[in-house]
């Protein structure tokens, strides 16, 4: 998870860094659709996005 081309923790596909992405933004694996969180930009690292909790909302 620390290489410059991280892979999806679910399907192991390589996930390219989207243009304009910021740290802690949620993105979607282009292969399997898993929601991922960008942990850092340099290096570009990812992890599974946190699960939605009951108190989440606006």
């Amino acid at each position, binding site marked *: 998870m620390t290489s410059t081309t991280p892979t999806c923790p679910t399907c192991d596909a390589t996930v390219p860094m989207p243009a304009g992405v910021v740290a802690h933004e949620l993105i979607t694996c282009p292969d399997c659709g898993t929601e991922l969180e960008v942990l850092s930009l340099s290096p570009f690292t990812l992890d599974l996005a946190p699960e939605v909790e009951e*108190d989440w909302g606006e």
Partner: protein
Amino acid sequence: MMRVGLLITHVRPEEKLLLAEFAACGVTPDVILDRDLAFDLTAGPEQLAPSGHPWTAYDVILERCVSTSRGTYALAILNAWGIRTVNNYQTATTCGDKLLTTLALARAGIAQPRAMAAFTEETSVQAIEEIGYPAVLKPVTGSWGRLLARVNDRDAAESVLEHRFTLGDWTQHTVYAQEFVEKTGGRDIRAFVIGGQTVCAIYRTSPHWITNTAKGGVASNCPVTSELNDLCVRAAHAVGGGVLALDVFESEHGLSVNEVNHTMEFRNSSAPTGVNIAGAVVSYVMSVGQDGGRHEWPPYTVDTVEVVL
């Protein structure tokens, strides 16, 4: 240079827009993740935030947590320490609870659907039938249209209540029942109040009785009339003010406030309205950071103080 903290759970499209607007103002907020927070409640605000700066170094903290519990408690702590926040704890705790929101609106004489609260299955059925069918059951806390139930008759009411009292945790055992309002044209209004004025509004149109855009409601521009602005500003004032999104019903009886949201999402609202909502939020946050935003609410006289519950 003003020091701003942006307290988040993660970055939604709204936070990305806010960061861009801060950058346009020459401000780079410290992004503080709620997962990283650990407060010493017995110490003071000189302790370090996860950013490495003492909390006292911040002119203002913008709370944008998706997690209501984390955001609300963080605001409680920061406000207890005298740290300026948007929104403040009073606003967050009122808007985070539909029962408390209803009470605050009632106290200020704001038009709203009739609502009742009860704590047992038996008294909840009585409360629902006092309102009349159809009625809407809502969790007192919650968002995005989750776990709303429109009950059309006694069978449905008893069934929903039995499920809530059997399967739900204690938060589901406070029953909040609201009069169902038939939406004119299958739409309701979401109005954005920032710094004491209604900056824009959208219609949310859906064939479903739940019109949240999170549930597929379609957004279009809603003109801000003086009637809508007056209602929304009064309602925002009633819950403590700040940056708010109000859900408003239209009916043959006029406008009424359904809910007030204090960490609003607006990703679908700037395009149809043409209003830079993120920019308005940032301007307001900067004003709070500079002078506490105390100019935001002009003196306001509430015409009616009758409590309707």
